[in-house]
């Protein structure tokens, strides 16, 4: 499967990065999707999208108040204007050579690095490497809606991969990790109830 480019890196730290893309590129990535930033020398950083937002635009605000937006104007704004779409991703691991580690990377990706959506094969390899080590990064992130993000991620794995028992193992791991944080556990399980039967 061809790699799907979703945008370019705007800013980054070791724990997360932000990607900018045009509206026409916005169909591919989704909340909870796994993305990667290849940095050369067989080294790439993985991230999980936890927020997609579109900055305010004065013209769009004015058009909205006018109502009756024609198809041409709609397409002009979506395809021709520079609408600043930003996606924020939590860094969940990195790959060095053939080895995937669920650790924070030695260095973050750099400005304008191309960010790709992971293919089902890449998603399978990442989530089955180790024992859910990347969940640590998700549970630590205060800025992400945890339950929703985990539910979206698990749904993506279910839809894109053929992993049969992965979901059950993932839920067990989450229960274990959150056993001392009852309010968060209840909240996460509530969200997971939407995607796990």
């Amino acid at each position, binding site marked *: 499967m061809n790699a799907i480019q979703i945008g370019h890196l705007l800013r980054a730290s070791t724990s997360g990065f932000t990607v900018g893309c045009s509206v026409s590129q916005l169909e591919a990535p989704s909340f909870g999707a796994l993305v990667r930033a290849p940095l050369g020398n067989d080294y790439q950083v993985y991230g999980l999208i936890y927020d997609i937002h579109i900055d305010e635009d004065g013209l769009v605000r004015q058009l909205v108040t006018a109502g009756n937006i024609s198809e*041409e104007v709609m397409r002009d704004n979506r395809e021709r204007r520079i609408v600043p779409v930003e996606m924020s991703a939590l860094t969940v691991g990195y790959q060095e050579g053939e080895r995937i580690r669920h650790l924070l990377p030695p260095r973050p990706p750099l400005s304008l690095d191309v960010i790709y959506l992971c293919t089902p094969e890449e998603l399978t390899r990442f989530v089955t490497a180790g024992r859910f080590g990347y969940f640590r990064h998700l549970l630590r992130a205060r800025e992400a809606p945890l339950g929703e993000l985990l539910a979206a991620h698990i749904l993506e794995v279910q839809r894109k991969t053929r992993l049969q028992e992965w979901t059950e193992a993932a839920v067990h791991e989450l229960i274990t990790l959150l056993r001392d944080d009852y309010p968060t556990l209840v909240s996460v399980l509530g969200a997971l109830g939407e995607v796990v039967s």
Partner: protein
Amino acid sequence: MSLNFQQVYAKIREIGQTTAARQQRLAEVRQRAQAWLQSLADQNEALRARIERARTIDPDLRCALPLAERLDACYPPAQESLPTVLIAADGSQVAPDHHAPLLYSLLNVGAIVLQTGSGETPQVFTDSTLWYEEELYGENGLWSEEVLAQRRDLAERRKLLELAQAFQGTAPEACPLITLTDGPLELWGAKEGSGNEYRRSLETYLAVLSQLQAQGAIVAGYVDKPGADLLVRLLEIGGLEDEKMAEVRSWRPLRGVTDRWLVGQFLRPGCRSAIFGLQSGSCAHYRNALALHFFYLNVGDERHPYLVRVEIPRWVAEDAPRLNVLHAALLEQCRLMGSRPYPYILHRAHEIAVVTFEEQHQVEHMLAVELRRAGGEVEGESCKQSAKNLPGRLPRP
């Protein structure tokens, strides 16, 4: 703090104290303007004769020239907006600056083609031109802001022609094509335009206009918030006694009244005014089908009327179907922008054309790198500019 606010505030107070008297005077002058409009509204022939006389004394006289319609005519749109090919162009420029690190100039023309009712994505175009060092000198030395503005206007109109020729064939049969620019149709710099550079630009511009006419295009210039008093000046000349005609230059009994206010008193939302010829010092250059005309258009609504001036050449002014297409299309474009009516397509052309400070800085950087790589000299900015760029003093905590 470098401004002496005490001095400024004293003046502000003085302005405030005289406001009531100024408003009173303005109300009186406005009343007079309305009365003169009422009495002269159908005196077109007599007014034209007076303008003819006034022109012999003041060849640079700038005012409205009445044609066949009453001065206070008000025409609602004759039709709904039809599918139309709209083309708009706008330009922005970076003028050469001796204090900058490098002596260069940049011109950027942005254009957009939008076919209304097609559901298709509009097409956008950008033409960027960079001039460096010796290319920036004309017969009068380094290009002035005015020369660059003329070049910008010309480049905009050329782009419109190029796109009109390219898109005329692609539009469905009988789909009218409108070209729009922001501002008057008159080439910039006309008032001071006596140099060879201006004359050459004007010749080219007139040739472009003629070709647009041959293409069957509806050409218009859109003047937002017009500050001119063309109709008011016409009334002043209409109210000038024959024996005082020699004083026409200084005869300004209606000073302070704008066309926008006067026409706003009778032009209903969506309506256009009568079409007037444009009497100006440069009108001799725009002859026959290219003669400049204009009308006012109320693009606002009942609660918020908003008047703009639309300039058109004679071939559009005298073609009622084309005029109706333009009228409807402008209203439609302005409605898209909601409570701040302005043609959407013109705003987009501006967005495409504008050169941001960051882009300008990037071009300077690229040019400097290339020059250094090729062994050229890069002087750097002037000490004066360098001092101006220093971060300002911080305010006291």
